[in-house]
């Protein structure tokens, strides 16, 4: 009989404790984001799409050579003063495995991986990206960070 009532009492107290926890949570700050409107900032080491700072590139072809899927393609031309300039820097995103080796191997940090993660396209040719075009990621980079 005593155990019956003490069980009931202890059960009741534990239920009240649970209710207090949830009641406090009603007024605690919300931790989710309103996703398409607010987006989470990516971490420093996040590997998004391959991007290029063309003025830093010394055309050493190391990124092309190390790329395991062969998704990068460079062509250059030599001017009269023997200076080399980039002609094309193509990036085939559908082949890219986002390994980040090109970023690691680049001696001048010209090639790097940006923070874009919402990358979908309606047609396949949109995935063939010309890295020399400054507006290449314009339609994907409207990220608002909270």
């Amino acid at each position, binding site marked *: 009989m005593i155990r019956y009532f003490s069980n*009931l009492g202890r059960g009741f107290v534990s*239920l009240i404790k*649970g*209710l207090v*926890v*949830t*009641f406090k*949570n*009603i*007024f*605690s*700050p*919300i*931790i*989710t984001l*309103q996703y398409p409107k607010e987006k989470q900032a990516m971490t420093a080491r996040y590997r998004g799409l391959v991007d290029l700072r063309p003025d830093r590139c010394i055309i050493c072809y190391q990124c092309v050579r190390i790329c395991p899927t062969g998704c990068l393609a460079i062509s250059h031309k030599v001017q009269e003063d023997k200076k080399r300039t980039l002609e094309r820097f193509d990036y085939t995103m559908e082949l890219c495995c986002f390994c980040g080796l090109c970023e690691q191997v680049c001696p001048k940090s010209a090639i790097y991986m940006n923070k874009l993660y919402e990358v979908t396209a309606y047609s396949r040719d949109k995935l063939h990206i010309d890295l020399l075009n400054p507006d290449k990621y314009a339609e994907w980079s409207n990220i608002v960070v909270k």
Partner: protein
Amino acid sequence: MVTLLDVIIRVLVGIAVLGFLAGSAMFLIWLERKVSAHIQNRYGPMRVGWHGVLQAVADAVKLLLKENIVPREADKLVWWLAPFFAVVPSVMAFAVVPFGKHIIVQDLNIGILYITAVTSICVLSVFMAGWGSNNKYAMLSAMRSAAQIISYEIPLTIAVVTVLMFANTLSMQGIVASQAHRWFIFHPSLALAFLIYMISATAEVNRTPFDISEAESELVAGFHTEYSGMKFAMFFIGEYTNVFIVSAIATTLFLGGWQGPLLPSPIWFLAKTYTLVFVLMWVRWTFPRVRIDQLMGFAWKVLTPIALANLAIAGLLLLK
């Protein structure tokens, strides 16, 4: 002599009650989603209207447009009738709920008895849905639900009887009037009755922690697994109307009904009722589901003996 005007007034009152019921059910669905979201540190619906208030309307429109699927081997008549049995008793119970000093459809002299009788029909809808669907999950859910609702009806009714002993009347307005000096919840014996009533009512309306008839992890969606479209919506409306009804009855029986200072009586009634509804939601999003043996054990070994003892003590208190 019933004149045409009388008929028109009755019809208008009926339309008003149905409108209130649908609006209330939609508001409660929105409130439930918001309360659950905030308890879990989420936003909940935010897109449709201000903070998602119109979400329930959007859902209703979606459900109206959905295809109505009938299982091939269903018991057609029972299958078709079940959703109506879910909504109609709840609507009938509204007839005697005192919303304010003079706002009551019909103050029957057996009001609370009428409500107890009418709301017990709800279990039929669950069982009909389970039987008619010809689905093993629905059938299991219906059996569980019938056992659960009938078990919990006993402590619930005993708790109501305890109140009636103090009120000396079965009329809803009479019960409210007898609490003019002191609400019944402030009486120790009736405070216990209030607790028993709220626990049993939670089980009656099949809400967590007593929602074994809708246990998703075991029974898909329980008795309404096979229902779609408007029929599913009717079960949903019935469920939320029942939540409102049990809170309204608890307000009337224990919290002094529409009585309160300053503000008009309907506002007091709705404020108290929605507070109780909030408590039911708060409980739902706090506690896990109990097992079926725990559920039946709690009804028969804990609630019923305590309710009976409480009834006897209340009788002794009234004797002196």
